[in-house]
Every structure is written in C-alpha cells, then in structure tokens.
C-alpha cells in the first residue's frame, strides 16, 4: 500500500482546489491517505508530493511533525488515554496503567493481534470529564477501570461500527462547496480589494478646523 485510489485522487483534487496554494492541502491529504490505509504509507507520501507539487522529502517533513500521522501500521483501534493534569488529578495515570495491564502492552505499542494500539496522550479537551480517553478519536468521558474493560471486550467482539469508524477516519461528513456557490480561493497577486469594501468606504475623517 499504497498510492491514493482514483476516488481519493478526485477527493484530493477537490480539497486542493479550495486553497490559494496547493501545499496548504497537505495535512488534510495526509489524513486522507491515513483514512485509506490506516496509516501513511511511503508510496502515499510520494503520491501526495506529486499532487501538491513538492518533493517527497517535504511531505515527510510535514508528516513527521504531527503525532496523529502513523508511518507504520497501527491497531484497528487506537486507544488514547489522557494523563495530563486534569485527568491525572482524577486517576488518568492509574487508568493508563490499568489499560497496559488489561491489553498486555506498554503505552506506545500495539497488541500482537493488531487490534489495539495504546497511547499516553496529552490533553484532549475533556478536562471537566476526567478521566477521559479516545478510541479512534471518539471520546469516552469519566471512564472507570470496569468501564474500560467492558469497552475493550465490546471492541474485541466487533466494536461499535456506527460510533467508532476504523483508524484514520475522522469526520464522516466532508465539506463540499458547490460550484455555483463558491467564492473561490483568494490567490495572492490575483486578488485585490474586496468589492464590498470598495463599495462602502469609511467616511473620510472630519477635517480639523
């Protein structure tokens, strides 16, 4: 795996078309590659480089900066347990240790059956719902160790496909700008003062008498 499929190339071109400069689409496109394969494959990065007109090294440079991008296959379910301050105060670290015991792996690794990857993550903005975790970036709030075990059992038995899509899929609704409604990207050098500004100038300041 794998270059983008023809369907995903069409999607990629639509995404690129929204930006004044193609490279701006790179992070959404890396997500698209990860959605397709579950991780970002080398071939996919080379393909993205062609699509946005940069070198593969530049794509790798961007990809390797962001921790959501996995450059090797990960588990079907990526379980991210927050241990940052608000969760730490209410048992986030203990929850992570429990998860390590339950799954039989250290945070940062994947179970032998390829089902679960466990991560110790930074604050995921659910601080009043501590301790919290995400499975494939879907939230679980105020979770106990018993609830964690039940969740793992449920996922191992086939999961909650409606609620938790495979790793790599983020939003299941995509933005689509209809051609007849699009204002179009604002390209530097091709785009002057907006008409609504020109048409409604601010009154000149009162001359000093």
């Amino acid at each position, binding site marked *: 795996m794998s270059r983008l499929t023809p369907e995903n190339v069409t999607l990629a071109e639509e995404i690129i078309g*929204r*930006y*004044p*400069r193609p*490279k*701006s689409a*790179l*992070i*959404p496109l*890396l997500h698209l590659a990860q959605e397709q394969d579950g991780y970002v494959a080398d071939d996919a990065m080379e393909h993205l480089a062609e699509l946005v007109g940069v070198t593969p090294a530049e794509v790798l*440079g*961007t990809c390797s*900066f*962001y*921790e*959501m*991008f996995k450059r090797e296959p990960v588990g079907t379910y990526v379980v*991210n347990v927050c241990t*940052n*301050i*608000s969760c*730490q*105060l*209410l048992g986030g670290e203990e929850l992570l240790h429990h998860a390590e015991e339950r799954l039989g792996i250290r945070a940062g690794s994947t179970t032998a059956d390829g089902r679960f990857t466990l991560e110790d993550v*930074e*604050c*995921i*903005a659910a*601080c*009043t*719902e*501590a301790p919290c975790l995400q499975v*494939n*970036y*879907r939230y679980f709030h105020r979770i106990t160790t018993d609830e964690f075990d039940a969740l793992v059992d449920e996922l191992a038995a086939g999961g909650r496909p409606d609620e938790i899509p495979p790793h790599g*899929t*983020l*939003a299941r*609704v995509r*933005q*689509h*700008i*209809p051609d007849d*409604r*699009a*204002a179009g*990207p*604002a*390209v*530097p050098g091709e*785009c*002057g*003062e*907006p*008409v*609504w*500004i020109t*048409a*409604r100038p*601010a009154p000149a300041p009162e001359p000093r008498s």
Partner: protein
Amino acid sequence: MTITEAPRIVSSRFDVADGHTIDVYESTHGYEGLRAALAKRPDEVVEEVKTASLLGRGGAGFPAGVKWGFCPPGVWPRYLVVNGDESEPGTYKDRLLMERDPHQLIEGALIASYAIGCSQAFLYVRGEMALAQERIAAALNEAYAKGYVGRNIMGSDFSVDVVLHWGAGAYIVGEETALIESLEGNRGMPRLKPPFFPAAKGLYLQPTVVNNVETLSNLPWILREGGAAFAELGAEASRGTRLFAVSGHVRQPGVYEVEFGVTTFRDLIYSPLYAGGIRDGNEIKAYIPGGSSAPWFFEEHLDLPLEKGVVDRAGSMLGSGAVVVFDETTDVVKAALRVVRFYARESCGKCTPCREGTSWLEKILERISDGLGRPSDLELLVDVCDNISPGIAWPPKQTTICPLGPSAVSPIASAVTRFRDEFAARIGEPVTVSTPITGGAYTAAPDAPAEVGA
C-alpha cells in the same frame, strides 16, 4: 459572592436538542447578526466590536477590534484564520462551541470577514476533534445551501468561502504563527516576530487575522444586541461573559458561562451553581487560574474577580479560561512534573532553551519524584528555568521565539516556591518545619481585591 443574571451569550444552544443544525439555529436568532452586519458599512462593524470591548478569548486576551485594525491599509487579499486548535491543558470550551453550535462560529467568522475585508476564511480545527470537524463540515454544507456562505451572501455583494481545515496533533500549532505555518502545509514551528506579525505578514505573507473560536462566537450576539449591551456586562477591561472550564478536585466539574470581570474565583469554585466546592469536604491546596501555562494561585487569591487586569497584576493570567483545582491530597511534585512533561513533549525544537531546557526540567523533576533527587536539584531546576525565562518574572521574559518554553517555568516556579518542603522531603533533606504559606509564586505580590473598580 458575585453571581449575576448575565445572559448566556455563547452557550445558549449548548443544551438545546439539535442545536448544531441549521433549522434550530435559524429558529433561535441564527444569522440575524450577519444580517445586521451587512446593513452596516464594514468600518461600522469594526466600531461595534470596539464598543463591545471584546477581549480575545484564546489566551493572550488582546482586544479583538484593535487586533483587526493592525492590518496595513491597501494590502490585499487579507485572510481570516479561526484558531480552533484548543490544546492548552485544562481548557475545554472551544470544542464545545464547535460541536454544539457550529453555525454560531461560522456566523462569527463571516461577520469578521465582512468587517476586516477578508477574501477567504480558514477554520482550523484541532485534528483530534473528529466530531467538531464533522459538525462544522455539516454546518458549512447547510450554510452554503442556504446562501449564508460563499458567493453573494444573502444576496449582497459580500462573498467569502469558509474552508474547514484540520490539524494532526501538535500543541504548538495553537500559537498563531505556527498555526499559519501549519496551514501552509509545513511543520508547525513559530515564526519570528518581527517581521512575521500575522496582521502584516501572515498566511502567504499576506495580512491575516487569527481569532479564537470563542472570540468569534460572541460576534453574532454583539451585532444583534449591540456592542454597548455587551460592554454593559463585566467590569474594567473584561466585558461580556466568558466560558470557564473548572476541572480537578471539585464536586461539579463543568464548563460555565459567567459574567466576566465581576464573578470571582471563589464563586466559580465554590458556588453550588458552578463547581460546588472541593470534593469530599477537602481543603483547596492550589489552583491553576488560566491553563497550564499560568502560574498557580492559592487560597488568598480566591476573592479576586475573573478580570484580566486584576489577575495579570496578581502574577498570573486568565489565559484560556481553564481553572484546575488541586485539593489538599495533591502531590504537587507529580503535578508539576506532569505539566512540565507536557511542554517537553510539545516543544517544537526550534529554540535551544526550550528544546533542551524543558526536557532537562522533566528529567530532574522525574528523579525528584522517584526519590532519586540530589541536594543540588532544586537550585538546578531554578537555574534551568532562569535560562529559559530570565529572572523567572511575570509576565515572563523569553529567550525563545514563542512562549512555550517560559510556560514550562510557571508550574515549577509556583510549586517550588510555595511547597519547597515537599520537594525537599523527596530529596531527603531533613525537613522539620513546613514553609510558611505567604504570597504568590512570583516576586510580585497579589493585588488586594479591594482595588477592583477603584
């Protein structure tokens, strides 16, 4: 107690069923603010926001209307970038605004674009927030279909695309120049200011306004009800209402919209309407008043109002509206270590004092926490802090391009100053007397609350 009957300006649809859909939004004053804005000249909209005295809600607390005015005249195109990369530990409000009221945010972005003259707007949502991305994508699709976004908005000559963009996991991208780098498809490393002030040289080196989600979510109400009505709420520099997330050892952790500038920390933490006091009848030991980058506050700061100037002068900040409460059972060495580890992990590596300093701070704190600390470690911690932020003062001085490095100094300065005996005990120093509890973490003494409104 200063609990007021201020309206819920940004959270009015949080508890409304399907509040994220356009039908509910339109039936609850949705897009009326945009209609009101389009009936004015752009400069009049800017004036309305200046009248409201709306402070940015992202962390720095700069007046939004003034920030808009920094774009150099005659340089086009301009861009609006919405900062939805909420990641400051303790902070939980922008995600709610994006998930539960995406149209309010879109309307706010449109009002700002109209006022500033932005030819394109980008809504940068944190990568980990899949539901927020989904709700915003759906809301944008609805809004395009109804003619609220895109070409000739509501039949006028105002045209702008609002593009959903999403990140991929990097705290530093919440810094506005790093956000712009990321939006250009690069590694999210901050740019040097000057020359790269976003208002002058931002996205594609064009004038760019970067506004926080909560800041923009206030605009529909301000345009509908008037800037003066907004400014009637609050006190001093802090007008309107504001969302605060109260987490940690409280009975009712939650996100509360309260009147800005007048409600106090004690109200927020102890009132049964809000966080309801400390769990299990325990005592408060310390609290973070505005996100993990903020120096800690203690019991003597509880009666300070949630007012930017007062909190700044008391030696900390309201930052991102994140109040994290520690009760008496809290191990402050571990708490400080956890916060410092965050900065060590999230340092982008561009500036040496931050890249090296934060990871050394983490290592030293870790060995203290593990009982392997050395007698010289406390001095060493302070010395490393001083190299990242000379003088360990507030507001912090920087040896770095952005404030991430100095942010790691805050928890250490707070914890080591106030709870020195707890650190000393871990190191094995013979501790007999607890350090007397006086003053704040920094050299500046807190202002007396009596100064408010003086």
